[in-house]
């Protein structure tokens, strides 16, 4: 009898340990591959090419120095930053007003407009780079940062609209109405009352647009030839590049993304969760 009564707490404790073990295991599943990349990137070229591998980095900057000195890398890095910055500016400048309109106004065609935004999500957007490559050659936009940024903005824009929509919806319209009665115009009420409140959220979605552009491979590889971005450059050199160059490149791609995700972690759910409904 005693054993039967003693079982539930035991079982519960076992379940608790299993739960913790699973959490730890899943964390390791994410972190260990990342750690191994860091070990490679922070070791000398000889260590990266030698066998067997040590599980600890040498903290030698040889690979990264080789990477920085590799012909064309710094230009590619610069191009990546330019394209991502342009994408960030355009997607917020174009997307935020639409997010505001969706949250504050009822107007004819609103449903159609929302459908257009949501529709972009059901299409493999990087494929758009193919027809645009032809169009860009005609208009002189081929192989330019702005041309690629247009395509990346198409990727980031639906997010920008839906995220700013949910941000604006979180601010009661009464605040704006109060500002109007106190002599603000619609515009000054917006800049003095609403904007300060949602600025952190806007920043987060801008960072998110930056990351989308920074990470994009296919369109970047199709649309740039001389002015390659970092992803396009690495992709092009995958077959021929020394292995330590690839790992250093992977490291440079990953580090900003890690920082960005950390910076926007509070907004992840607004971005992916609510923005997807």
């Amino acid at each position: 009898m005693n054993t039967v009564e003693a079982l539930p707490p035991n079982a519960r404790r076992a379940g608790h340990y299993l739960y913790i073990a699973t959490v730890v295991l899943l964390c390791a599943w994410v972190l260990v591959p990342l750690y191994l990349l860091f070990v490679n990137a922070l070791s000398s070229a000889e260590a990266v090419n030698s066998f067997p591998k040590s599980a600890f980095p040498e903290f030698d900057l040889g690979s990264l120095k080789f990477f920085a000195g590799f012909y064309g890398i710094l230009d590619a890095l610069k191009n990546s930053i330019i394209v991502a910055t342009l994408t960030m500016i355009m997607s917020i400048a174009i997307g935020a007003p639409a997010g505001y309109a969706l949250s504050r106004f009822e107007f004819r065609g609103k449903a159609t407009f929302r459908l257009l935004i949501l529709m972009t999500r059901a299409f493999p957007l990087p494929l758009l780079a193919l027809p645009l490559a032809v169009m860009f050659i005609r208009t002189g936009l081929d192989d330019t940062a702005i041309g690629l940024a247009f395509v990346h903005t198409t990727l980031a824009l639906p997010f920008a609209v839906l995220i700013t929509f949910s941000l604006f919806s979180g601010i009661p319209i009464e605040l704006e109405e109060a500002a109007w009665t106190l002599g603000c115009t619609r515009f000054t009420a917006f800049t003095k009352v609403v904007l300060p409140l949602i600025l952190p959220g806007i920043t987060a979605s801008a960072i998110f647009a930056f990351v989308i552009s920074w990470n994009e491979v296919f369109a970047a590889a199709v649309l740039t030839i001389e002015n390659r971005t970092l992803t396009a450059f690495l992709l092009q050199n995958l077959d021929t590049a020394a292995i330590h160059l690839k790992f250093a490149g992977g490291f440079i791609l990953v580090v900003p993304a890690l920082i960005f995700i950390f910076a926007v972690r509070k907004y992840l759910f607004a971005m992916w969760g609510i923005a997807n409904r």
Partner: protein
Amino acid sequence: MNARILPYLLIAPVTLFLCLFFLYPFFLVAHQAFTEGMGFTLDNFREVASYWKFSATLTNTLLLAAAVVPIQLAMALLMATMITRMGKGRDLVLYIWTIPLGISDLAAGIIWLAIFEQSGFLNSMMVGIGALDKPANLLTYQNAGLVFLAIALAEIWRATAIMLVILVAGIGLIPKEYYEAAEVFGASKWKQFWWITLPLLRPSLQTALILRVIMAFEVFAVVAALGGTLFPVLMGETYAYQFDLLNNGAAAAMALIILGISIAATLIILRALSVPKGATI
């Protein structure tokens, strides 16, 4: 300003932008795929489909999606339910689990290359424990299964976080009262998951699956980093047509094929997980 015109002014830039860079290119790509010189033609599709690699390319892409997406769905559901029960350390665990969200598919491919390459960590470990006497070249034509495994692992590693975030947000929207009521009637945790969480999570499951499946059909850089030409996929062949063979028509035809598969998958998922009209949480 007039409150009737203002909303249209505010949405005009997005609408114009999407017309120019979203709708118009789709028209262009279809035009490119179906015309040769002046007239209508199916030659591009015939050319693409009759290429000896095409059936392998299509099968590989579909097989990879079929292998990866169910595992990711199960993992994301498990992680999401674990997160919602978590008290202390929730933020840290959530940050760690969502890290791959910010990582490029190319970087993910390179990360798993560090493990699977010949002087990589898997070989080091296998030799270390004595399972192999010398490092084997894992990612070669002879080891097609291993190439597939490496690509599948990299895909699972990279893209589970997207589903996780959507599902966690979805679970957060389910009212606690349902669980309290179930608790009162003595439903087990498993029963609560099966009869409350899963049905009410349908809209989120729908979006998570659609996004993920479309991404799976777009798989490109992970494969380029790990398998190269050993494991041809649709997007990789499209890139080869456009860039190596300079055949825009064939590339456009491939693009339309990927598009067709994506739309078909979206419709199937929408149908299978349809939310009854008027049923909201």
